[in-house]
Structures are given as C-alpha cells and as structure tokens.
C-alpha cells in the first residue's frame, strides 16, 4: 500500500466518522451559503460544516498558513473522489474559495492573502461576483462601472447586475473600469469591495419565475482602498479570464451538491397523466418519451466524459456542449411537463394547487433563465463553433 492508498483509507475513515448520515443523502434543505449570514437548516448541517472547517478541508489544497488543508493535487483529488463516492454533501457553497481564492493565491499580494484567505477557509466571509452590467451581458468587456483613483482609494460608481447572492454576501470581487480611454479590454481592473461600504444599494431581482437570488447592485461614489486591487492596474481582464477558468470547476462542485433531482420527467408525466386521458395526451406522451431519450443520451454523455477523462482522452469538446445541451433539454422537458399538466400547470399560488404543481410551474419558468444565465446558448454555440470546430471568425 503506497502513501496515496494510505491517505485514501484515512479519508474514508474520517469521513465515515465525521460526516453525519443525514449529510450523505440528498436532502430538501437549502445548501449552506458560507459567510457571516450563513444559516443552518439542521444541526447535522452545522456539524458537518464545522468539522470540515476545522479539518481545513473547505480549501483542502491551500497552504495551511491560510487555513487550507495543505494537501497536494493528488490528495485533493482523492478527497473529492471519496466525498463523491460516499455521497457526502458539499458542506458549503462559497465562490470566494472556489473562484477568487485561487486567483488571490496566484496574483494577490502577501497582505491580501493574509487578510482575505483565512476568513474564507473559516467560512466566515461570503463572496459575490460583480461582473455583468446592464449593458454588458454576453459582451462582458464592455463594462462601464468606473473606479476613479482618489489618493489611496478608488471611488466606484455604476451598477452591477445578475449578482447572485449579493444581498447575503460580505464582499464582492468586481471588475471595474480604471481607464475609460483605453481599448475596452485594457482599462479593466479587479477590485475587492466590502459590501458594507457606504453608497452600496442591493436590490434583489424578481424573475418571471418569482423571487430569485440574483441582485442588482448600485454603487454611488463608493470608496474602496487601493490596496484592494488584485493584480496590475488595468490588467484585470487577464485576472478575470483566469478566474473564469475556475468557474467550470465551481460548476462541477455545484453538481456535487447532492441535491434531490429537480424533476424526474418520466414518473412526473406518468403521475400527471394518470387521471384519465384527454384528446392529445398520446402526443404528449410521445414528446415525453423523446425528452426521456434525450435526457438519457445526455446522462450517458456526461458519464462518457468522465470515462474519457479517466482514460486521458481529450474532453474539451464534450465540456463545451454540456451546459448548452442540459439547459436546452431542460427547457423542452419543462414544456412537456406543463403540457401534460393542463390546467394543473397554470397555477401561480394559493390552495387550489399542490406544492408540487406550483413548483413545476416555477421550474418551467426558471428553465427560460437557464439558457441565458451563465453564458447564453448563443455564446455556447459561438464557443463550440470557434474553439471546438475551428470555424473561422466573422
């Protein structure tokens, strides 16, 4: 037995001893959002959070001096594999750790590391990402939020949109324009902003599906110490690109959240169609079958991606289609469910409808969001065409 195997044994035993049984099955509880406003739905959730924190395994690969686990890449992989295998839930969601942290480790000053990393690894600070703006959606680099140098501070004015969890976050890492005269990619910097700063207003966005975690954040002459700038002034675009490379990883962590599957198509359709047949039901059943087959093909493809990665084959092409396929399929699937539900799928609130029915309606409406948020389907298609297929630019 080599060292790694020994470590694997150790991890298994530790997880077995410390991860509560309730944290090893999909649960209905909300995921813990790390930060000062973290809320625990159950005592098991809190225990699991605290044990992982104390073990340093919120950020297992970071140096111990910043509160990390100090594990090498192989060992981090072993830990992740074992957690996945044992179906341990991710103890917290924290994009500070998943996205900003690696970039701070790479680009940050020692003072920045000292100041920002330990509160993350203790789960005390929650972060939000301030990238998108009302007029900079797919074209992120056209962002306009200005940070004007004023002594040892920047004065920030403008607005961010689609900032997930801004109303709960302690800090924001934001892209700001520090040189309005430069070509658009060359006047951007990455700034860390305390959400308690005077001049910040957070307004949650109501979606067509109802309340959401997305917020709009307004900055009215917000003063931010210049020491909070990460990387070179006007060099934020490169830092941001680096940061977004971690998004995929973060997304895959989200995939490990061990949430109950949102909506099982086949049993749901069967349940809704059980109460007698109406003209046209047969066509709906056939569409449901088509969706089920598509979904099956998708799950097989995700599995194949894993197998190919394990066999050290290229998976860049498959990675590029996952989001597109998943969200577009989800939209079609939700539409079929709504069709199957008939007037049971037209409820908005109130006692006439079951929770299940109302949730399915909201889910249907949310499916329209998913093909837009996190890189619209059009952006995904552009990326596939250019990076995967090598089609020429236009």
């Amino acid at each position, binding site marked *: 037995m080599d060292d790694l195997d020994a470590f694997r044994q150790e991890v298994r035993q530790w997880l077995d001893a410390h991860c509560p049984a309730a944290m090893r099955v999909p649960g209905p509880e909300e995921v813990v959002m790390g930060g000062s406003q973290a809320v625990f739905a159950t005592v098991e959730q809190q225990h699991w959070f605290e044990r992982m924190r104390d073990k340093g395994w919120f950020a297992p690969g970071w140096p111990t001096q910043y509160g990390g686990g100090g594990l090498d890449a192989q060992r981090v992989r072993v830990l992740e594999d074992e957690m996945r295998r044992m179906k341990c839930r991710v103890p917290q969601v924290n994009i500070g750790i998943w996205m900003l942290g690696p970039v701070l480790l790479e680009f940050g000053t020692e003072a920045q590391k000292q100041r920002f990393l330990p509160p993350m690894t203790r789960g005390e600070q929650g972060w939000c990402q301030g990238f998108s703006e009302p007029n900079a959606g797919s074209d992120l680099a056209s962002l306009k939020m200005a940070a004007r140098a004023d002594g040892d501070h920047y004065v920030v004015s403008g607005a961010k949109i*689609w900032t997930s969890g801004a109303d709960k976050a302690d800090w924001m890492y934001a892209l700001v324009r520090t040189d309005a005269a430069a070509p658009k990619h060359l006047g951007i910097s990455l700034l860390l902003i305390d959400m308690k700063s005077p001049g910040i207003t957070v307004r949650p966005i109501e979606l*067509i599906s109802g309340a959401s975690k997305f917020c709009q954040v307004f900055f009215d002459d917000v003063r931010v110490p210049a020491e909070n700038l990460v990387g070179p002034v006007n060099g934020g675009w490169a830092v941001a690109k680096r940061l977004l490379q971690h998004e995929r990883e973060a997304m895959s962590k989200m995939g490990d959240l061990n949430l109950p599957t949102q909506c099982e198509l086949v049993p749901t359709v069967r349940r809704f169609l059980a109460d007698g*047949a109406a*003209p046209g039901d047969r*066509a709906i059943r056939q569409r449901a079958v088509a969706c089920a087959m598509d979904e099956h093909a998708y799950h097989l493809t995700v599995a194949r991606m894993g197998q190919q990665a394990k066999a050290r084959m290229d998976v860049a092409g498959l990675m590029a289609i996952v989001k597109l396929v998943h969200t577009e399929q989800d939209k079609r699937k939700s539409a079929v469910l709504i069709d199957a539900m008939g007037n049971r799928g037209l*409820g908005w609130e109130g006692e006439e409808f079951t929770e299940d029915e109302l949730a399915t309606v909201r889910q249907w409406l949310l499916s329209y969001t998913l093909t837009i*948020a996190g890189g619209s389907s059009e952006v995904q298609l552009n990326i596939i065409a250019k990076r995967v297929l090598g089609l020429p630019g236009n």
Partner: protein
Amino acid sequence: MNMVFSEEQRLLADTARDFLDAHCPVAALRRLRDGRDALGYDPEVWRQMVDLGWTAIPFPEALGGLDFGYSGMGAVFEQMGRTLAASPLFATVVLGGSALSLGGTPEQQAAHIGPIIAGDRRFALAVDEGRRHDPAAIALAARRTEAGYTLDGEKVFVLDGHVADWLVVAARTAGRAGEQAGLSLFLVDAKTPGVERQRNRVLDSRNAARVRFNGVRVDAAALLGQADAGWALLDEILDRGRACLAAEMLGMGQWLFDTTMHYLKERIQFDVPIGSFQALQHRAAWLYAELELARSTVMAGLAAINADAGERRQLVSLAKAKMGAVLERISGEAVQMHGGIGVTDELDVGLYLKRGRVARHVFGDNDFHAQRYGEGIGLLEAGV
C-alpha cells in the same frame, strides 16, 4: 374564405388599438396583479368598452347587436392581445352571448342579451372538469326532477367564474362520460343555493375559478337548447371562443415579435446591434414567416365561424393549434433574444409568456386541436 379585414373592421381595430393603448396598457394588468384585485378587471375600462359598442359586435341586429360578426370580434381581440387587456368581453359576450344567441329561446334571449350588450350582466361558461380540455368527458350530472333539474358536480378553470352573474353549465343528462350524446346546457343564476365558487390565482393573473354544484336546483326553463343534444351547440360556442382566443394570441404574438425586432435593432453588444448577428437574423426571419402563416389561419378561423360545421371545425382547430405553436415559439425566442432582462418580471415579455400559456390551454391546446384536425381529415382515429 376572406382573410383581409374590411374597411369597417380595420376601423374597429384602429379604434380599439388607440383606446387600449390609452386606457388599458400592459401596466393596467400589472396593477390588477400586484394589487391582487378581487374582480380581475377594471370596471371603469369595461364600462368604456361597452360604450365603444364592443359588447354589441357579434349579435344580430334583431337582438340589438351590430352584426359585425366574428371577424369584427377578432379584430378587437387581436388588439386586446397586444396590451393583454383583461375584461369580461370573452366570457360574457363571446361565450355567454353565443350560448344565448345560438341556443336560447326568444324568452331567454330577450331576458339576457340586452343586459349583456348594456354591460350590466356577466356570464361564464362552465365546461372543463379534468386536467385538459375534453368536453365529451363531461360528467357533471343534471338529474331531471319534477320542477326541472338538479345539478351535482364540479367544474374547473371556469373563466370569470367567480365574478359571473350567470353561469352557462354544460352537464350530462344522459349517456356516459366520454360520449358526445347526452349533454345539455343550462342557464344557472350564480346566486342559486348550492353554487360554490373559489377563485384560483393563476399564471396570467386573470380570472379562473373552481365552481361546485351541490344539489343545485334549476327549473325547466333553465335548459338552453335541446336536452341531451347539447354537443353541437356547445361545440359551436367553443369554436367561437377558440377563434377569439386565437385572435388574442395573434395580437400577443405580433406584439412580442415587434418588441423583439425593436430590441434587436437597439441593443448593442460587441459594438454592434445584436440584430446584425446572422444566427439571430435567420431565427427572426423564421418567426416572421411563422407568424404570417399563423395570421392566415386566424383570419380564416374567424371567417369560418359562419361556415358549415365541418369547415368551421377544421379551420378553427387549425387556427388555435397553429397560432398556439407559433406563440409558444415566439414567446420563447422573445425571452431568449432579450437575454437577461428577458427573464425579469420587470420586462413585459414575461407577462405575454404567461398569458400565452393560459390562452394556449383554454378550450384545447395544440395537441387537442391537432388531434381534432387529424380526425377531421381521417388520419387519426377518434378518441384520446
């Protein structure tokens, strides 16, 4: 089949458009929604619609109407679709009014059509009992008694059901659920003991109610049309409703399309209007083509209201199915092409998406009407 509005109908549409823009814009629906308005429409606006003569449009002159027919009615509903105007026009005039003018005795007509035209009496049509539209499946029982009939059963998703003064109730007086034969229609005063109504809060913020009939007694004069032979009458009433819904959906589709084209020209990304991206251009061109195809079916469906039943059924089902499919597509594309803002409650597009979903469902969704059309051309066997 005339598919072009006459001068008169165009004038009607123009007037409607001006009136609705001024008095019943989308913001009005938003107000009703956010205020959780109990009535579900603005009585002031309704009064003005009455004054404009809209309640009189489809009725023959002999009954005090304008005799503008369903192409005229469609012209108004298309405009109402444009601004998502909520009003009793559909349930009261199109459904209740058709029930009376097609099936009513002279006495029934005399009693009700005047008040309908005057805007003083609201109606609702109680048909569906199950998950999806299926009039042959009606099971609500109307038992013959000495004095008349006793109604027992439940109706769901009755439009304007909770505000209606009178209900037209489709009930089974013979046969079994699933059979077209054995249905009868009844005129029931909504205040009759045993009638229980509960408004539902639904996707489009309009009116739909669950209505229970617990031993509701009506006299023999409540029967509308012939006993046991109500199917053809109900079918014709429904087709009028379907054609008007298709017209409303056409107005919604056109609004979504126009709004989206405007956005494509205005919204700048990567330093150019997003409407210059060829992938979006081709999708927009397809939407245009589909919308024009659907417009033809809607105009034909409206014109077919007075055709023979076979042609009417085919053309109305074609209009409801095709317009429904096109509206679904346009709604989805409108949201997607607007990007992030498209999924916010702030933008009106989402309200059209929601109302569109309801309108597609009411009186038969795309699948129902494709089935009905397919049976009509002998490609699908009858049944579910």
